[in-house]
């Protein structure tokens, strides 16, 4: 029986099992995003001191649930969908052992629900990091462990699918760059999940009384092997999607396969060292260890991101120039499809991830500069620039592509979709910039009351810190509205979007029968051929000068901001 369909709009081949697995993972991820977004409202409206909405216990519970649902459940579920797409769909092969994929998915689902139950019962408000010896309910840890095991199973289904593609020769030459990036993400995921297991399993045993003591410092070092590395899965995944979007929308070719793949390889080799970023002001950690690890050996993973920062927009520029948009430095960018949310979302993600997320991350990850930033609200500002305007906005952008291609529905309320990346990206950028400012003034993260009500001794932040938190919160509310617009379009499209192809029914579509049987009429997809050679392929000139200017702007911003922070550090109490 034919198991494949070809999407007439995009030319992608979908294997029936892969399609169902992609859908369930993506949809559950989006549900987690919905929960996280609603909770975000509680967080920003409480930290906006003039509003100060939730009582302390609710606030900490909401903050815990917001962090876990957004950073772990939303992103990792969606990444599972990305892995199926990058293997089965791009390589035109059947998915390996789909039954195991379902087992993995259900373990993740059970784990996510179990963890949320623990948090919302109110007795596990321990924050996403759950630093020992503060203890959560046993099912808080067990939920995370089941989730991680499920994710690991799906990652191995991905590896198996790559083997299927290779042995059944469904493609010529080497795997595409996007698949290569996804492999990077999957390899980092294995490392990440292993670190999580090493620390969460003993912590679970401690919570039920089988282990008497978990060393708090050891917990921090190993937990961050999961906590930070999981963000590196996101980086690899969303950079892969950037390349995919450049290819789909512009027909862009990577400027150099060698350079881009080398940059991904640097991620595998060095990104994991970043757990050190969280340990820089901890007791007793040696200076050499901190310098080597916090800098990813010698900023080699930063080098990788700077390379992608040039080659992703650079490949778009080359493609645009080939189409005739050659006037000046930036005609290619001005004439880009800014009304298409797939493009605008991706481009806003590239800019905010690079200019804000990347620069602030390196600055606060500098061994000594961390002294003036650790645990201030600067930290969540940084990672909202990487994980929200970077990863989440990228995933939103690709969802606008997946709705017609994967779900075979027309976009519901396309004008909302058109505005959504600007509202979401703009609102979040305001939140991030003002949180960065407040953090520089010493405002604490994970803190219910910047007035310190009830404290025996008073401390007052300068008035400007309050103003920054208020403006940031307004940006946050705008960002949440933008998130709501995304959910409206995504969920609306699945329920009410015009069907582009005969559906098997809403329930069937999530249970191994995505579309009507008649749609699956391809027995064996054509072998994926190598990209055609172009005459001008072996150029050596400056084919993307506009992007080069943008890259130099990034560098100048980076250098100036980096040294400003050293100057600020020099003004605080000498320590030795």
């Amino acid at each position, binding site marked *: 029986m034919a198991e494949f369909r070809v999407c007439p709009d995009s030319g992608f081949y979908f294997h029936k099992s892969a399609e169902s697995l992609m859908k369930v993972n993506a949809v559950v991820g989006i549900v987690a995003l919905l929960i996280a977004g609603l909770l975000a409202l509680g967080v920003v409206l409480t930290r906006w001191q003039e509003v100060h909405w939730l009582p302390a216990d609710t606030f900490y519970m909401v903050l815990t649930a917001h962090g876990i649902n957004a950073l772990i459940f939303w992103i990792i579920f969606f990444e599972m969908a990305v892995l199926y797409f990058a293997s089965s769909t791009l390589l035109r092969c059947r998915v390996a052992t789909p039954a195991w994929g379902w087992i993995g998915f259900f373990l993740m689902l059970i784990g996510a629900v179990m963890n949320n139950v623990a948090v919302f019962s109110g007795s596990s408000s321990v924050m996403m990091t759950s630093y020992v*010896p503060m203890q959560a309910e046993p099912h808080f840890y067990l939920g995370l462990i089941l989730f991680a095991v499920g994710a690991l199973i799906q990652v191995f289904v991905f590896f198996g699918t790559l083997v299927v593609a290779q042995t059944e020769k469904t493609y010529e030459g080497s795997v595409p760059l996007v698949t290569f990036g996804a492999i990077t993400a999957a390899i980092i995921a294995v490392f990440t999940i292993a670190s999580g297991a090493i620390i969460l399993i003993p912590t679970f045993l401690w919570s039920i009384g089988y282990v008497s003591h978990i060393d708090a410092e050891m917990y921090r070092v190993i937990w961050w092997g999961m906590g930070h590395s999981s963000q590196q899965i996101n980086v690899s995944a969303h950079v892969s999607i950037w390349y995919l979007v450049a290819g789909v929308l512009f027909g862009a070719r990577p400027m150099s396969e060698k350079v881009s793949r080398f940059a991904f390889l640097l991620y595998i080799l060095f990104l994991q060292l970043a757990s050190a970023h969280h340990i820089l002001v901890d007791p007793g950690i040696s200076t050499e260890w901190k310098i080597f690890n916090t800098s990813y050996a010698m900023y080699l993973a930063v*080098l990788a991101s700077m390379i992608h920062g*040039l080659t992703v927009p650079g490949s778009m520029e080359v493609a645009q120039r080939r189409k005739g948009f050659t006037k000046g430095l930036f005609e290619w960018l001005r004439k880009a499809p800014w009304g298409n949310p797939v493009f605008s979302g991706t481009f806003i993600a590239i800019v905010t991830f690079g200019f804000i997320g990347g620069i602030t991350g390196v600055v606060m990850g500098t061994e000594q500069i961390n002294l003036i930033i650790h645990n201030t609200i600067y930290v969540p500002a940084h990672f909202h620039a990487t994980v929200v305007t970077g990863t989440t906005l990228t995933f939103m952008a690709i969802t606008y592509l997946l709705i017609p291609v994967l779900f075979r529905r027309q976009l519901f309320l396309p004008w909302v979709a058109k505005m959504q990346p600007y509202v979401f990206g703009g609102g979040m950028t305001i939140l991030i910039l003002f949180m960065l400012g407040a953090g520089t003034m010493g405002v604490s993260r994970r803190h219910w009351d910047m007035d310190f009500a009830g404290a025996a*001794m008073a401390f007052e932040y300068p008035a400007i810190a309050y103003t920054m938190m208020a403006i940031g919160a307004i940006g946050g509310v705008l960002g949440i509205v933008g998130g709501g617009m995304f959910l409206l379009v995504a969920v609306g499209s699945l329920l009410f979007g015009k069907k582009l192809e005969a559906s098997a029914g809403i329930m069937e579509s999530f249970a191994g029968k995505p579309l009507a049987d008649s749609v699956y009429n391809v027995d064996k997809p054509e072998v994926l051929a190598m990209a055609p*050679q172009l005459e001008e*392929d072996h150029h050596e000139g400056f084919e993307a000068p506009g992007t080069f200017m943008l890259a130099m702007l990034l560098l100048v911003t980076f250098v100036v901001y980096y040294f400003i922070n050293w100057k600020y550090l020099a003004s605080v*109490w000498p320590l*030795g």
Partner: protein
Amino acid sequence: MTSFMPPADRNWWKVPVGRQELIWIAIALVWCIIMFLMMPLWHVYGKQNLSTEAYQTTPAKFGAKVEEMISQYKVGEEAGMPVVAPPVGSDVYMLGRLWQWYPILKLKKDQEYRLHLSSMDWQHGWSLQPDNINLQIVPGYDMVLKVTPDKAGTFSVICNEYCGIGHHTMVGKIYVEE
């Protein structure tokens, strides 16, 4: 077309890299090396470097040292908490617990002290304001740093590691006198 297709050239790793990418990689690498060198350089020429001196301890042992210091050098009381003025250059202790930084310290400007920090229970964040120095305080570890307060005035220590429902009330104090 090709980001999601196999590379046009089967031997893609042999295709020469364009001038633009090479220049950017070179610039970026130089910047990475500069940033890398800044950290050891600051250890030589900078004044804000975190010491690596730390000892394993227990809440009972650390608490006893705090009490010993208080009994020797207590100069007053404020908000029910002892104010301690230990001698210049001595070992000075401050502990974090639910939800206090204990005791209040009185230090002399431009003099060096050996400051010991630890937690009696959960993890805490020692955040000196408004100077903005932030340290992670971990139970079971006695963190020792040489500090030289270089400004006179009243400083607050707030907690910036979440430590439960009273987290926001955890405010301590350090006086620095001329």
